[in-house]
């Protein structure tokens, strides 16, 4: 497989540019990959993903699910000999994917939005509601079936709470907080 490195024309703002800035000092030592607890599930190793960002291979970056699988354990950030903000870079990629509405990242983006929606309303994740939201937004009737067996196991172990019919009102809601953050983000 061969891929041409695109020379980014300077006048077009590259959505990856801020992430690239975070990573430029990378020496490709691979400490991040060796440290990553989720790397077994990733299609691209973190190091390779950073390389792709640096080389401006935007399509390949967003075709990958690596950043969506980052669980923000901060192992890589802690260990990077260059002291690079790698977890932040992963988060930045998630945000870019959401903001740019990149098709290949739809499922990951929806997962995160659904998750946060639940947090916004209740101050915690209500698993059942979150999954329902996610499946509805996915607009894919087959999707839930893929998770059936996992769902059953989780349910049997009491990991998924059956939603109460009456929602508790009160201090659980984080809507005000989310509003304020959105305001601040808009300002910046």
């Amino acid at each position, binding site marked *: *497989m*061969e*891929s*041409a*490195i695109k*020379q*980014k024309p*300077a006048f077009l703002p590259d959505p990856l540019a801020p992430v*690239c*800035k975070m990573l*430029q*000092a*990378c*020496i*490709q*030592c*691979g*400490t991040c*990959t*060796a*440290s990553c607890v989720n*790397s077994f599930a990733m299609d691209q*190793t973190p*190091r*390779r993903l950073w*390389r*792709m960002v*640096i*080389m401006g*291979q935007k399509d*390949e970056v967003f075709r990958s699910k690596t950043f969506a699988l980052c669980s923000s354990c901060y192992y890589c950030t802690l*260990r*990077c*000999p*260059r*002291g690079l903000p790698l977890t932040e870079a992963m988060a930045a990629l998630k945000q870019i994917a959401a903001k740019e509405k990149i098709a290949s990242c739809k499922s990951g983006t929806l997962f995160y939005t659904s998750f946060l929606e639940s947090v916004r309303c209740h101050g915690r994740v209500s698993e059942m509601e979150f999954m329902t939201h996610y499946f509805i937004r996915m607009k894919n009737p087959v999707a839930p079936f893929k998770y059936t067996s996992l769902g059953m196991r989780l349910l049997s172990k009491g990991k998924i709470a059956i939603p109460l019919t009456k929602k508790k009102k009160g201090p659980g809601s984080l809507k005000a907080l989310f509003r304020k953050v959105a305001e601040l983000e808009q300002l910046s």
Partner: protein
Amino acid sequence: MGKKKSAALVVGAGISGIRAALDLAETGCGVTLIERSGHTGGILSQLDYQFPSNHCGMCKMLPVVDRDAGSQFCLRKGVVHENIEILLATELISLEGEAGNFTATLSQNPGPVDPGRCIGCGRCVEVCPVEKPDQFNAGLSLQKAIYLPVPHAIPNTYMIDLSVCTQCNECGKICPTGAISLLEEKRKDFRILVVDDELIVRDSIKLWLADEGFSVDMADSGPKALELLSKGAYHLMLLDIKMPGMDGIKVLKKARKDFPELCVILMTAYATIETAVEAMKIGALDYLVKPFEPEAMIPRVIKLYQELELKNQLKIEVGAVILCGGTSYFDPGSGKNTFGYGINPNVLTSLEFERLLSGTGPQQDLNSSSNQRYFIRPSDGKPIKKVAWLQCVGSRNLQTEADFCSSVCCMHAIKEALLAKEKFCAPTGEEIEAAIFYSDMRTFGKSFQQYKDQAETDHGVRFERGLVHSLFPDKLSKDIITRWVDIQGKSHEETFDLAILSVGQRPALKTAELSKMLGISVNKWGFCETEPHSLTKTNKPGIFIGGSFGGLKDIADSNISAGAAALEASRTIHISDKGPTIIPKKLPLTRNILRELPRIQVVICTCSETFVKADDLSDIIEHLESYPEVEKVAVLDRVCTSLGLDELIEITDKNQPNRILIGACMPCVYSWKPREIGHKLRLDPALIEVIDIYSRVMDLPDNSAHETRIIMENSLKMGIARLRRIDPDPVKGVKIRQKALIVGGGIAGVTAALAIADHGFQVDLVEQKEKLGGNLNWLLRTVEGFATRPLLDEIMAKVVKHPCIITHNSSRIVSSHGQVGNFTSIIEDMDAGVQTIKHGVTILATGGTEAPVTSYNYGSSKYIITQKELEQKLAGNSSDDAVDPNRMETIIMIQCVGSREKPRNYCSRICCQASLKHALLLKDNNPAINIFIFYRDIMTYGFAEQYYTRARKAGIVFIPYDIDNKPQVKVCDDGVSVFAFEPIVGRQVKITADLLVLAGGIIPTLGQELASIFGISLDENQFFKEAESKFRPLDSIKEGVFGCGLSLGPRSIPESIASAKAAAQRALRILSHEEMPSGKITAKIHQSLCVLCEKCITACPYGARLLDHDLGKILINPIMCQGCGTCATVCPSSASFLAGYQDQQMFDIIDAAMEGIFN
């Protein structure tokens, strides 16, 4: 020769300090060499093996000409030179004055053991009850509180670690020579003032201290204390902080002002610790937290007392100061300690591993036994099979604030891996497996690349490109589990028996204090900073840096920079009219004894009757006096003291013997007395022999009077046998033509010329081109951003108007012959015709040039250029040819073009920096420009690493390539396309660019023809072959011919300048003397027996012999001859012999040794 004023002060007696001191001493400069620790040799005393030979080789640094001025034994054991005064356990505490005229205050802390009395018998160690980790073995074994700082020094004086010593004085009681004084009897004179408002505290402290023998007074308030202080002299004040009325801080402030010499220890309750810490900034020495037990206080007071009492200060006048403080190591146990160093015993540092390998290390018993060659793990005794080395621990790591490369660890790790493989095997008989985890293998020095290749291909050392972040011990076996990701992104897990951390370097201990005191600047990592284009100059004139004190150098580079510092110091001393002068070498005036029969005066020193009673010697005396040549046997007590020496002079003055034999203890043998005695008696020092008669007696049981007698008697008889047949012929000197020839007028050549000319010697500078300046004519700036033009202009201005420099432009050397001190060379000048020059030394500064590039389609497109062309094009302002970064979109650079592979299998050292320099410049001018650099290993050693980091941060993309899979270049109409495999992304990439820049490396211009004209050899890459790559990096095997600059090997501008100065200093060792004495032990020839077979000429490793066709004789240059005796062994007719070791003499010595043993 009387005691001289020191001309220079060298601080630190590691390898650089020794080099600087010897280089100065050999020119006739008096040098004071001080060292904080108790031994010379620095870090090298702990490192037994150096690559590429995997031997030591330190002795190669010893003087080659005028050998007898210094010691001629292993340099690790100690340094001795008539012009060097060594002060151990000494620190520089202040420096006043200016360049050429400094007054240095030194503080000496020799400890409770008197070096003049300690004979190293070791009885004290047997009785000492305290054990502590052995520093010499990096804490891997234990030693007593009274210990030898290094096992191999001669003479080796014991030291006491006062921080652990319990003052039991068992050692003092057993010491046979009374060398140890723990000073208890003098404690009465040490006056302590205790200030506290509580009577009970005062009283109990007074009681405790009085029990220890100190004089104690008390004061119940601040004003009372100050009153007492003004009345009588106190040494120490124990001061409470919280007191009614005047508190401790106020008292302290006042006391510091009025009595600056007074030491103050504060006493504080828990609540006021912060105040106490604050108080220490005002000048308190220490603090004690109340309530405290006597065990907490007494040792501190005693330690302080010892330090104060034993320290003596001395002032010396010096012209220049050279700082050779070396470096310290990063402590991997500090910070996050992800490797578990200090927690898992199977994680060691590279120094600890080196000690394990050593024959004097903690496994020495194991290492010396020949049948078992296993290497056992110190923690649990498991035989070691697999070892991993982890590179860049504490280097190249922004998290430990080390944005620099420690330069030496890569080669150190390879060496250790090879040593482990060579010396040991696994119990199954297999080789030890070694893996080195690295991110760039920095093989940038001369012969480094070959060494690495050999390690990889011939010895099977595994090189894994990957960083291991943390180490986990296996729960049961405590083996080390490593996890890393290879370049393709595959994760690996592997278990090793031992993990070695290649720890990086840090500034030497107390660098900050020293630099602050001297007013010299340090860089952001705390290493001493040098001026632009210099490795040795600090911002203070007259203070220079040698070796790794200025940061991160290997042995060869340390030696070169120390030599350069010596030159700068010598120049400072030379041009200052106020400073101490250099004393040129004079042959000693001796009385003519050629026609006298041997008359030997034997002197036996009883060494305070430690081993024998003077009365018991009568048998020996009687026996020795029966020898016809023995004049008289005298018995003296402690000949090493000045009293003993006077007595000796008196006796010998009366008897006028023509040979003297002194039987004494071992330290006496090495303490250089023969010269002093010889000068006083006008007797050739070579005719005075000091022999050790007690070392072998020391180990005998108490009731072995007979054995004692035989050993002593035979030792003395061997001495007599040697002296009886010694050649009384005084040493010959060789007249030196005090003039230098320098070939090559690049920056190295002109620097060397200026350095020698500044000492007042004539220099002929020969340059083949019409203009001086060499590569600096086209180079614009260095990677640091310093312009090179002002440097060249400044030095050229000096060269042109210097009265001692004659330049020959457009000239070449036609022939040269002769030997050190007397060369005759013919030069052909384009204008002036042929000239003959007679000179004493030659410096080859023939330089180098960019290697011609033949690969990557070079020459087929104007878009493909070399780094040199890029430098020139970046200078061009408006011409079409110029490179304008603003009109460029993408630039590609390829490193290692033709380098580090056959036939040019060496790293050119500076191409990576040159590419970074250009890439950063382009990026600075146009931040939008894309730059891709294809590399194999980025060789930004030392502080150049920061430019690599900067380049990465600037967005320059670095793509590694493999030697078997090089990038492919395709030329297009408006640029070039490069196809290459990107190993991290794991696929082929195509990059189109406006410009492709190739880093072609450096080749020397020296050439075989010039080398043979000067009789030197070239290495396999056509560079100047040095006598020894680490310890004599600038000398050729042929004495009197030196190399510098690019002719030695690729190096940067500051490194070239340093090598030129160091080479000039090597040359000045010879030029400074009108006549050079030869060594006493040199080869001679019985001309009547010689058949002119010339076997000895080929055998002589120093080129000291030649056949004179006119005379029909073999001639020996006595100052080039090193007295090795090879010629004597190859000579078929026994015509060649070694003076001082003639056959009959040796037979006599052997007879004397055997007498009384077999019959």
